[in-house]
């Protein structure tokens, strides 16, 4: 065919093989270098994650325990007359029993009495009240109660307030430390797991502050977000992927969705502020509105994941069903959708996990309010986990420093759990066609 074939063979074979052999060492090294760089990159990412978690744990772990004091309480009928319940001098009752535990202290001085009472958390009196109200027969009786101590003493007990510090610069004075030590020596002080972190709502008092309100608020917001974004996103994804004619309009929708997935979350906050609260007159601070906003943000993520999952279902399945005389909708709802479900769920969980951690839009719709009771419906005012973190981070009390980290760890825990569920889905239902 050409002249080349008959041209005299170049003396090449030896050289070519030799050349290859000669280059090999260098090329192997290059490949190994590439491998190490890749491994290094991954290590960097891991290291960062590790530092992040480690720095959180190092400040946050203290918040998972809370110092308590155990008291013998005598409910003096004089202070707490049965006919005045739920009012009564519960604080004085507690003061009296503190006085008994600190026999050397002169409780007659009002200043001192207050200071001693200050060892106990402000919530102690209400806990006592609730117990007595629930069981009025306790009046006139003596029983033991374990209540949290107030934040400075908690800090002291955890070693966060150093005794070496000059007295004037300490939140706890020398005599107060002495009281506390007396209590500790008598075995009244304990440091159990801080269940209050999960069962209490927000409070001004770090020792009482908990995440219940935020958890409930996040729950309602996430539920709303899920109930709205999931069906809408799936409907949209199915339509766009399976039915939409390929025209300008569907291109436009596609660009829109991709763009919404990248629109800064604070812009969604602006949207919610203007449209939901401004025009529709929805209440401020309501998890429902938060959920609605998050739904708009999450929807593109779910749509994109769903479309990818639908795309991954091989065309042969569609063809088979179509060839049997199934309508397009039958094909989609009876075959494609069930097969794509694991992928869709994975995408949904990841989208919801992101929504769970989203802060900026919630700030703009007032979900950063202070509320001491958990919301009982999605229309009640509430905070959410990330905004609670935001509020705590801005609180002057020292106890909130570790609580902020603890709250972040709790949030991270939820996120990791949700991601783990997503991974489980992915691996369990992963199909090879």
């Amino acid at each position, binding site marked *: 065919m050409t002249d080349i074939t008959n041209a005299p063979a170049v003396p090449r074979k030896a050289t070519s093989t030799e050349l290859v052999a000669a280059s090999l060492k260098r*090329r192997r090294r*290059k*490949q190994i270098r*590439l*491998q190490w*760089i*890749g491994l*290094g*990159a*991954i290590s960097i*990412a*891991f290291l960062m994650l590790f530092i992040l978690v480690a*720095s959180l744990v190092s400040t946050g772990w203290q918040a998972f325990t809370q110092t308590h004091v155990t008291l013998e309480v005598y409910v003096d009928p004089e202070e707490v007359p049965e006919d005045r319940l739920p009012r009564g001098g519960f604080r004085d009752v507690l003061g009296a029993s503190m006085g008994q535990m600190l026999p050397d202290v002169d409780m007659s001085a009002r200043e001192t009495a207050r200071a001693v009472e200050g060892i106990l958390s402000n919530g102690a009196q209400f806990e006592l009240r609730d117990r007595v109200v629930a069981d009025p027969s306790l009046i006139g009786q003596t029983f033991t109660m374990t209540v949290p101590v107030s934040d400075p003493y908690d800090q002291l007990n955890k070693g966060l307030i150093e005794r070496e510090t000059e007295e004037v610069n300490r939140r706890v004075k020398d005599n107060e430390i002495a009281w506390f030590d007396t209590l500790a020596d008598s075995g009244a002080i304990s440091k159990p797991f801080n269940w209050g972190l999960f069962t209490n709502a927000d409070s001004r008092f770090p020792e009482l502050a908990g995440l219940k309100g935020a958890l409930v608020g996040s729950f309602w917001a996430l539920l709303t977000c899920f109930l709205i974004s999931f069906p*809408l*996103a*799936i*409907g*949209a994804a199915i*339509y*766009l992927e399976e039915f*939409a004619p390929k025209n300008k309009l569907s291109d*436009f*929708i596609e*660009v*829109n969705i*991709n*763009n*919404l997935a*990248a*629109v*800064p*979350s*604070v*812009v969604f906050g*602006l*949207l919610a502020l*203007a*449209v939901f609260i*401004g025009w529709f007159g929805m209440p401020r601070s309501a998890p429902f509105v938060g959920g609605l906003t998050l739904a*708009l943000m999450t*929807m593109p993520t779910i*749509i994109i994941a769903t479309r990818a999952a639908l795309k991954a279902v091989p065309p042969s399945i569609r063809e088979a069903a179509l060839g049997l005389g199934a*309508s397009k*909708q039958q094909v989609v709802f009876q075959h494609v959708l069930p097969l794509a479900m694991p992928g869709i769920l994975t995408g949904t969980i990841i989208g919801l996990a*992101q929504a*769970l*951690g989203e802060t*900026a839009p919630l*700030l*703009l719709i007032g979900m950063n309010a202070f509320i001491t009771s958990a919301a009982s419906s999605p229309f009640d005012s509430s905070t959410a986990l*990330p905004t609670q*973190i*935001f509020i705590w981070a801005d609180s002057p009390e020292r106890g909130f420093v570790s609580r902020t980290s603890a709250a*972040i760890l709790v*949030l991270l825990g939820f*996120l*990791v759990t949700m*991601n*783990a569920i997503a991974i489980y889905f992915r*691996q369990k239902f992963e199909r090879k066609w």
Partner: protein
Amino acid sequence: MTAVPFLFLILAVVAGYVINRRAARLIRDGGSRLHSMTSYHGMFSALLILVPVLTFILLWIALQGPVVDRITMAGLPEGVLDGLDSGGVQLVLAEIKSVSRGQIFGTPEDWKIAAAGRYVILHDRADWWLFAAVTILSLALLAFARSRVAADFRARQGVEGIVSGLMIFCSTVAIFTTIGIIASLSYETWRFFERVPVAEFLFGLNWEPQIPLREDQIAAKGAFGWLPVILGTIVITVVALVVAVPVGLFSAIYLNEFAPKRLRSIVKPVLEILAGVPTVVYGFFAILVVAPAIRSFGQSIGLDVAPNTALAAGGVMGIMLIPFISSFADDALSAVPQAMRDGALGLGSTRGEMMTTVLFPAALPGIVGGVLLAVSRAIGETMIVVMAAGLIAKMTINPLDSVTTVTVQIVTLLIGDTSFDNPKTLAAFALGMMLFLVTLMINILALRIVRKYREAYD
């Protein structure tokens, strides 16, 4: 009480389904060949009832409150509202409402108590009306659906039509969202540009929104040139990409080609956790851990590092973006057909050469698309920079310096004192609009690139 109409609706839907299916069965058993299967006849009836009635109930519930309020107020005796402005009227209404709930303070006037009584009755009545309307509507639709049952009735097409309609509605939500965003931004943006000339905003070199919100506020004059703000955004974005792109890409390369299966199955999900960490957490991390570390390191080698250095915010943002880029790149690399790998290996390339000379270039369009999406993430990222970046806008590209970003300015201008007739507050909306437009452009670009070069090797 609101639960009753819903319960009834469920009943009607079930009844519609059962009745129509039964009817269709009878026809079929009578020997005619049905066009659609019996269950489609049932579903047709169910959907025909469900969609309009549900819409109706939701609308009614949304409107009942305002309508009842208006009727109550209209029924007040002549003259009692004279001299009250709208706020006062609102207050009267509020009082009537709390009286109707039984929360009575002091001694309200008799007409208020009467109005409260009426208010309660109206609400009860409205509930009854709703119930009646739902009943009538459901029954009418039920009857209509029943009348359609026939051998050649295309119930399947009917059902599919309704479902299609619902799905189309779903996909337009995205458009409505975009419209909502534009609408909620454009009015205020326009008012901003009435006060600050567009040219000054677009080309001004000074950003000092210190303008007083109130006449008597202590603040200085303001300047609204967004260039230093967008420059700061760019600086932080570049820093983020400098961290994220190489780390992300090399991670992807390693995971895609070299990592043992076990390692891959662990590393991928762990990397994804990085993407899921709430950005407010990254913000704390940046400002409390990374920034001081960079600053003290910088000082130890004699560099002048600002406490809010863009390196900290950008670097941490980069960490957040690593999984974003690595999973995009991993997907793009996996999408390169096996034939390319075979081709390269068959020619005697090492796996490293195959990766760098064939797979990577082939996957580049997909990777670039992913990087561009990461860029728009970085530009729009809020909480990290709110906590870790500066607030003062500076014309600088020195990453050691402190810069501010568009999102930081939006949040700062909107949290705290706001006043919607002052350019200081309105500027947030103008910035939001610009941000929206910039990400839109980047996204269109990303889509173009992905589309244009997608599967070029097939």
